[in-house]
């Protein structure tokens, strides 16, 4: 962080000089956010001069004497504080009555410094103010960063929602206007494709709601002993029709229950997403294998496929929201692009994580590690 700019307003030259000398060598360390701050000091002899300097270039901190020859320190405060919300005012006074203190605080003074003050007392107040300023500015830039991420997310989301709408609208126009010639089969195919895009659009909206609920902590969790092997079996049954259509074999290894203290719906989301991906990105006639094993305090879930696999570059991008691997081999594979983001979020709630080993052309193995959820629901 750059040096903080301090304006010392006092009609006594020796006080201004003493403050300037002291602060120009003073450094405030803020270890918890790894910052240290220096100070650059400017001076004003009167309230009028102070107002001019504040208006020209608002300082970070104003050390403002209450008793000044022309307009008072309170007048300066009242005129300047509202206009410069980022400037912190510290009132300096030999005889602060409670009434004055209340009025100054109401007008936006951050703190007081009683005259006469030692260098230590000055540094104590300045340290407090500097810390306040640095932390406030850090919070502001964090909030800005979040706004940016949010904006990006919404922009991509809007694009992902527009794409199926565009496809559907195009088909509907073609059907209404009979733009594809006399062959009825083409219009039937268009209708089937409209239905598919609608379904995936709904899936995107459901995934988006799941993700938002997980992030907000609004989702009610019911933590019980869940048999993950049974959840996996159910996920395979859900995927069975799509798998059968492409002669893909689905297996869960073993048959003894593997228990995890968990929320059942969260486990269903993980298994449904992994199995559905393993089918979607598989080759016709391929195999999907689910392995579940307890290792000490954690459970290792792995879902492997014999599909198209990914390049290391594709693997790197895979876990970002809305990233779907697009190449000639994935044309026609639809998805929300949120499945793995959701799985990673859920895994984190079980002190776990998700990773992938993949070989282009051979297939991928997704590994999820989960620990028993703490007895009290705390996402």
């Amino acid at each position, binding site marked *: 962080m750059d040096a903080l700019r301090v304006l010392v307003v006092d009609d006594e030259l020796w006080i201004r000089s003493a403050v300037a000398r002291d602060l120009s060598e003073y450094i405030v360390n803020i270890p918890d956010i790894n910052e240290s701050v220096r100070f650059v000091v400017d001076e004003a002899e009167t309230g009028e001069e102070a107002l001019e300097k504040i208006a020209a270039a608002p300082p970070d901190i104003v050390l403002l004497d209450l008793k000044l020859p022309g307009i008072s320190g309170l007048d300066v405060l009242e005129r300047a504080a509202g206009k410069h919300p980022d400037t912190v005012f510290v009132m300096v006074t030999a005889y602060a009555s409670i009434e004055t203190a209340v009025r100054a605080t109401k007008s936006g003074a951050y703190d007081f410094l009683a005259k006469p003050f030692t260098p230590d007392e000055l540094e104590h107040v300045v340290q407090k103010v500097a810390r306040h300023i640095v932390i406030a500015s850090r919070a502001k830039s964090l909030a800005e960063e979040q706004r940016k991420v949010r904006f990006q997310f919404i922009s991509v989301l809007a694009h992902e929602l527009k794409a199926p709408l565009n496809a559907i609208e195009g088909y509907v*126009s*073609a059907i209404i206007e009979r*733009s*594809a010639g006399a062959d009825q089969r083409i219009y039937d195919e268009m209708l089937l494709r409209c239905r598919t895009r609608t379904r995936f659009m709904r899936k995107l909206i459901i995934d988006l709601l799941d993700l938002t609920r997980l992030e907000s902590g609004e989702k009610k969790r019911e933590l019980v002993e869940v048999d993950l092997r049974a959840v996996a079996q159910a996920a395979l049954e859900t995927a069975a029709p799509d798998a059968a259509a492409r002669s893909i074999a689905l297996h869960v290894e073993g048959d003894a229950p593997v228990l995890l203290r968990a929320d059942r719906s969260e486990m269903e989301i993980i298994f449904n997403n992994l199995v559905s991906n393993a089918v979607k990105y598989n080759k016709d006639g391929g195999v999907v294998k689910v392995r579940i094993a307890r290792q000490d305090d954690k459970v290792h879930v792995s879902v492997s496929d014999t599909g198209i696999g990914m390049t290391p570059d594709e693997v790197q991008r895979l876990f970002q929201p809305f990233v779907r691997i697009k190449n*000639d081999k994935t*044309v026609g594979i639809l998805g929300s692009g949120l499945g793995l983001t959701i799985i990673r979020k859920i895994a984190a709630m079980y002190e776990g994580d998700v990773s992938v080993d993949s070989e282009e052309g051979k297939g991928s193995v997704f590994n999820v590690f989960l620990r028993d959820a703490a007895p009290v629901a705390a996402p």
Partner: protein
Amino acid sequence: MGDAKTILVIDDDPDVHFFCKSVLEAEGFRVITAAGGASGLAAFRAEKPDLIILDIMMERIDTGYGVAEEIGKSVPILLFSSMLNPSDETFDPAVVPFSDVVRKPIEPETLLNKVRKLLACGKEQPGRLP
């Protein structure tokens, strides 16, 4: 069909492929499709199309602009876009190497009109050389 004009559609949305094939083949054009920039360029070189339809929003290096630059000005390029403002109807070919643009969602009539205009053939002889 030997004299049918060939149109190459480069877009990562398979429904755009099917839509364009259905609408353009009904009018006698020959339509080939590619899902990405690399396969699009390969198809361009192998098939020597008379017109290219290109999506600008494809991912990674496969951006429409990159493909358009590679192809140069040898073939008219009709751009598909879902991002442009309604005011962006016109393009300066000196700056952007596209011949014309269609915003998504694509209306079949609009697509046919622009394709015909770019191939400079009348409605009476759709998809044929004059």
